[in-house]
């Protein structure tokens, strides 16, 4: 028997012209947590997907527990004891939790028997790992954090000995992430092997035994976690030193630019998502909204941006009242000087099939500079896009390239460039750096601070507590649609975490 749960030898994979994995060798010791880090597009997901049988390597060998394995599809991987939680969840959204868990592991041709068994087994697993989920809940109605739990349960349910998690904490709150890490530790105790892909070096330091670094399709190094440092890893990842702290001066808040009063938003099912929320954002300050994903932040941003109608409440923009209870008009909000960086660039902020230049004017396509009549001046559009590309160092610098062909970080820069360069009075930003690599994060953070210093009012929503703490001048914590509290950025992580978990609120209510 080998000491290695997994050994990859000479894995090579091309996607057409893209060489995603170049002759990769990797050894993962049994019963350890092995981290994999790398910039966007380094090939981490591809490598793991090959291990999981989702993609086929062009060449190379896979050994599992010392045995050469022929993993021709995910079925083979599952029976070899591998489970994977994908970066983009592989769940059937209109299925119940139970159905998702059972899919592919149904036991028999008729479901009835399997359902009873799965329900019992699920309950056992939930108790063992303290992962509560309602087995009959429909996936699309669950917050992402819970969806991820389902993914993990799915893998464990299939008796995975080796669990791969691809950027699992991107969608989690610190508390949820902690919980996840406790589960991982527990799995490790049971002798299972975990491979963890993440962009967050602190997580690597906190939980892994070993860490491998990928860069541009190559495996550049593997280190024992105890023998390396955040700085070394960061350098290995990008090949240069990066700033992990945002330099910023004192905020000089001016007049109130955005004022929200008693805002209440219900979703299509009638569930109250934002509950009587009031706050102000002043010129020259960044107000951060922290909170576990799904506590109403998204709905709050959308209501302010005019994309969703509020049930009641008022919003005042630069002193002018806005009708937020009507059908909503994002175009009108833009005209009034509000810019919006939406949380989800793939579905909302960008049209992936458009050329870059076309996305660079999305929402502002009515501007006179893009054409005087109903006709668009394509030259002007491209020229404008090119200017933004240069300012934001968007790569590759080609305004005619399909947006889908830019990496996630560059796509995000396209959105930011568009919204920031309009020089808005008020900027609302959702998840500015989700899934973006370290280099790009640094750039984006700098730009946000610059905007503040130019006297813009900025409302920032992020599930990254670190990000909020380093950028915001004031932090509002949301829980269950309400404002759970407001703190200064120097509040401790623990204190904010309690607020995000709704603990404070319960205490207050008890008083």
């Amino acid at each position, binding site marked *: 028997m080998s000491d290695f749960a997994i050994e990859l030898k000479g894995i090579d994979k091309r996607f057409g012209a893209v060489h995603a994995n170049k002759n990769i060798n990797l050894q993962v010791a049994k019963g350890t947590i092995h981290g994999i880090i790398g910039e966007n597009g380094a090939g981490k997901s591809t490598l793991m997907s090959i291990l999981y*049988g*989702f993609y086929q390597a062009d060449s190379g060998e896979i050994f599992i527990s010392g045995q050469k394995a022929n993993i021709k599809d*995910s079925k*083979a991987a599952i029976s070899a004891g591998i489970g994977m939680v994908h970066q983009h969840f592989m769940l059937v*959204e209109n299925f119940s939790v139970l*159905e998702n868990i059972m899919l592919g592991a149904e036991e028999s*041709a*008729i*479901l009835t028997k399997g359902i009873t068994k799965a329900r019992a087994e699920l309950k056992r697993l939930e108790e063992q790992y303290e992962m509560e989920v309602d087995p009959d809940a429909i996936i699309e109605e669950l917050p992402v954090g819970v969806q991820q739990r389902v993914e993990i349960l799915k893998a464990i349910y299939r008796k995975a000995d080796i669990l791969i998690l691809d950027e699992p904490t991107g969608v989690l709150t610190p508390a949820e992430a902690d919980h996840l890490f406790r589960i991982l530790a527990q799995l490790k105790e049971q002798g299972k092997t975990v491979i963890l892909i993440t962009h967050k070096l602190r997580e690597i330091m906190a939980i892994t035994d070993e860490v491998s670094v990928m860069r541009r399709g190559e495996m550049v190094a593997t280190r024992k976690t105890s023998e390396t440092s955040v700085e070394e890893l960061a350098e290995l990842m990008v090949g240069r030193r990066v700033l992990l702290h945002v330099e910023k001066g004192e905020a000089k808040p001016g007049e109130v630019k955005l004022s929200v009063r008693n805002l209440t938003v219900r979703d299509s099912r009638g569930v109250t998502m934002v509950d009587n929320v009031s706050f102000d954002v002043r010129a020259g300050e960044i107000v951060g909204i922290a909170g576990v994903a799904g506590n109403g932040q998204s709905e709050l941003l959308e209501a302010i941006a005019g994309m969703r109608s509020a049930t009641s409440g008022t919003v005042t923009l630069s002193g002018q009242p806005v009708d937020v209870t009507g059908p909503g008009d994002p175009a009108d909000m833009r005209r009034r000087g509000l810019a919006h960086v939406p949380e989800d660039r793939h579905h909302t902020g960008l049209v992936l099939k458009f050329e870059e230049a076309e996305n660079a004017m999305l929402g502002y396509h009515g501007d006179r500079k893009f054409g005087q009549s109903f006709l668009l001046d394509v030259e002007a559009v491209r020229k404008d896009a090119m200017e933004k590309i240069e300012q934001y160092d968007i790569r590759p610098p080609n305004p005619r390239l399909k947006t889908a062909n830019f990496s996630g970080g560059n796509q995000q820069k396209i959105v930011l460039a568009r919204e920031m360069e309009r020089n808005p009075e008020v900027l609302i930003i959702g998840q500015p750096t989700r899934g973006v690599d370290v280099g790009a994060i640094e750039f984006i953070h700098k730009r946000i601070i610059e905007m503040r210093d130019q006297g813009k009012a900025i409302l920032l929503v992020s599930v990254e507590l670190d990000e909020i703490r380093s950028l915001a001048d004031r932090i509002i914590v949301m829980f269950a649609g309400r404002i759970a509290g407001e703190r200064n950025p120097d509040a401790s992580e623990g204190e904010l975490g309690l607020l995000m978990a709704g603990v404070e609120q319960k205490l207050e209510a008890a008083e």
Partner: protein
Amino acid sequence: MDTNTIVVLLQSTIRVSVPLILTALAGLYAERSGVVDIGLEGKMLAAAFAGAATAAVTGSAITGIGAAMLVSVAFSLVHGYASISQRGDQIVSGTAINFIAAGATVILGQAWFAQGGRTPALSADARLSTYKLPGADAVRDVPVLGPIYSDLLSGHYLLTYFAFAMVPITWWVLYRTRFGLRLRAVGENPGAVDTAGISVVRMRYLAVICGGMLCGLAGAYLSMALANGFVKNMSAGRGFIALAALVFANWKPKNILITCLLFGFLDALSIYSQNADLPIMSSIPDQAIQALPYVLTVILLAGFIGKASPPKASGVPYVKER
């Protein structure tokens, strides 16, 4: 309208809704797996031809049904190959099948039987026969329930009973079996199915084959039960109506039954009212009466059902590596 009229209308409703039910269910299997099928019309037509041609030659209804299903499945496999294996456009593939079936049935029919694309009239053995429910004659005179049992429920083709039985069976397959679970999943998120260790391609092929078989039965029913032989283009748009019924039913088996019966009833009603010289009806142009089912469908679409929510992945080829 007296009971008799109502029974007559409902009988007609049952007869004409059978091919719609079978075809809409065929579409259900395919679309629930993520494969849009606008080739239903062509498959039904090809099956009607194959069934009648085989039955005419062999004199056996069972062989005819077998041939109808075989041909329809063959077309399904072409559609599957184009849209599953080759990831082609599913609408285009379906359109192609409709064209090919419309042309090929006539050419082959002419080549084999030299009756202008028609098949010879089927003998009694080669046709599907009707089946009387036990005791149908005995209870006919019982008021109300008697006619309902012996005239409405009894005396249909076995295929009719089968079509109606297929609705709960399909429901059961879809929601109570492993195959159904996977089928629904693959139409919603093929990635989830793939990573669960199930072959997306295999599931989709199975689904289109199921659809092909049902469509084959629908075709056989047209040419071997309702008519006694094949006439060119005899499907006469029923595949499209079935498709409408499928959407109208929001891809749900129970709704398909209701929708197809409704469409069938409107059809029966329009026929009935043309004949019956009802005082108001006679002043309405025939064309308005003919258009009634379609108009009503539109009105229903407008008023009662909200957004149709098709399977999320339907129409989208599963591509892992672009």
